């Protein structure tokens, strides 16, 4: 893992985690508020199962809490947290021995929510929905390594180096996985884009 040479400033993730380790529960609350949405988004995309995503999310945070005494600022907290979440998810995949993603909808039958709905234009709404549906389908089809790298980048906001640290591969490997993932996803979206430009 990369070493964070400088001392974290008071509001940094690392400083908040250290404050929590020292007994400041409010520091944890702030840290949690920063990462609850992106981390859950990462796990939800990975599992495509809301209940399972909740379980893995709790598991990941529980591990952070349980391991707090051993926490050291050796890397960014973001990398640390996503490394744990990544392992939680991989452990789950190994236990279940199946890839839990097979459809464009969640396993419980519900659709993933969109961040915002397209304005009242029915044609745009249809196109938007089709775009999201294709995107989810294409994400499902990605090999696990490519999808993982892509989601760590897009949902987690991790850099190439951070993804490399999380997944235990080299930077160039991560870049290659990301490139292939984006190529495939763009190819899946191309028909919708070309239709929209007509």
């Amino acid at each position, binding site marked *: 893992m990369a070493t964070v040479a400088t001392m974290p400033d008071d509001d940094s993730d690392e400083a908040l985690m250290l404050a929590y380790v020292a007994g400041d529960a409010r520091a944890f609350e702030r840290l949690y508020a920063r990462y*609850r949405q992106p981390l859950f988004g990462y796990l939800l995309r990975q599992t495509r199962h809301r209940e399972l995503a909740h379980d893995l999310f709790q598991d990941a945070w529980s591990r952070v809490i349980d391991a707090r005494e051993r926490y050291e600022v050796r890397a960014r907290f973001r990398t640390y947290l996503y490394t744990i979440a990544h392992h939680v998810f991989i452990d789950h995949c190994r236990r279940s021995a199946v890839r839990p993603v097979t459809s464009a909808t969640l396993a419980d039958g519900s659709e993933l929510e969109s961040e915002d709905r397209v304005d009242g234009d029915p044609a745009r709404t249809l196109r938007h929905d089709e775009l999201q549906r294709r995107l989810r389908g294409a994400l499902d089809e990605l090999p696990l390594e490519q999808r993982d790298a892509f989601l760590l980048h897009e949902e987690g906001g991790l850099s190439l180096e951070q993804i490399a640290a999380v997944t235990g591969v080299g930077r160039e490997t991560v870049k290659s996985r990301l490139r292939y993932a984006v190529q495939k996803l763009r190819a899946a979206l191309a028909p919708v884009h070309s239709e929209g430009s007509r």
Partner: protein
Amino acid sequence: MTGGNGHDDFEQRLRRGGRLLPELECDSDGPDAETDRFVLARAHAALGERPRGAPAPRFARASRWALPLALAATLVLSFALVLQMDGRKGNTTSGADPAGSAVDRRAGPAPAEESAAPTPMARSTPAESGQPTVPSAATLGMTVESARDARNPDETPLAWIARIERLQAAGELEAARRELAAFRERYPQTALPERLRALGDR
């Protein structure tokens, strides 16, 4: 994107940061409130305190089990009640006195059970007595205790808590407290439902 320029473009996009695929929308606003409470309660509990102004923490995802457990508990108690009613009715109509029943039991296949070392209460089972079970605090206690003794080492914390709650609901407070103490010893950082916390504080 396969040529040299494509590689350069991709590298530049990566360096610029931001999303590689802006079309990908955020899927969720985050976990539900119950999960938020669970994580924060756990974080506070690890420090030995309760979240400020927060309600008593509930065990994670407990709501999933609450209804089935409540139904199961209701069924068990109802069944026990029906058996008790039947037993009383049978005694009344046959005119058999309780002593007679005891004699019958002594003639049963397991006399050693009757003369065994003193136990808090008689613990005959239907198999031993050949009679319908007459539920009492003793028989309920035996059932629960047997369940505890037969505890699966892989029992999840959630199942364990549910079992303690069943003990509490059955009025087996001592057993519930023992189990609660054991649970706390094994999972010291797990937040407990409020009513179990009260049980432990007594």
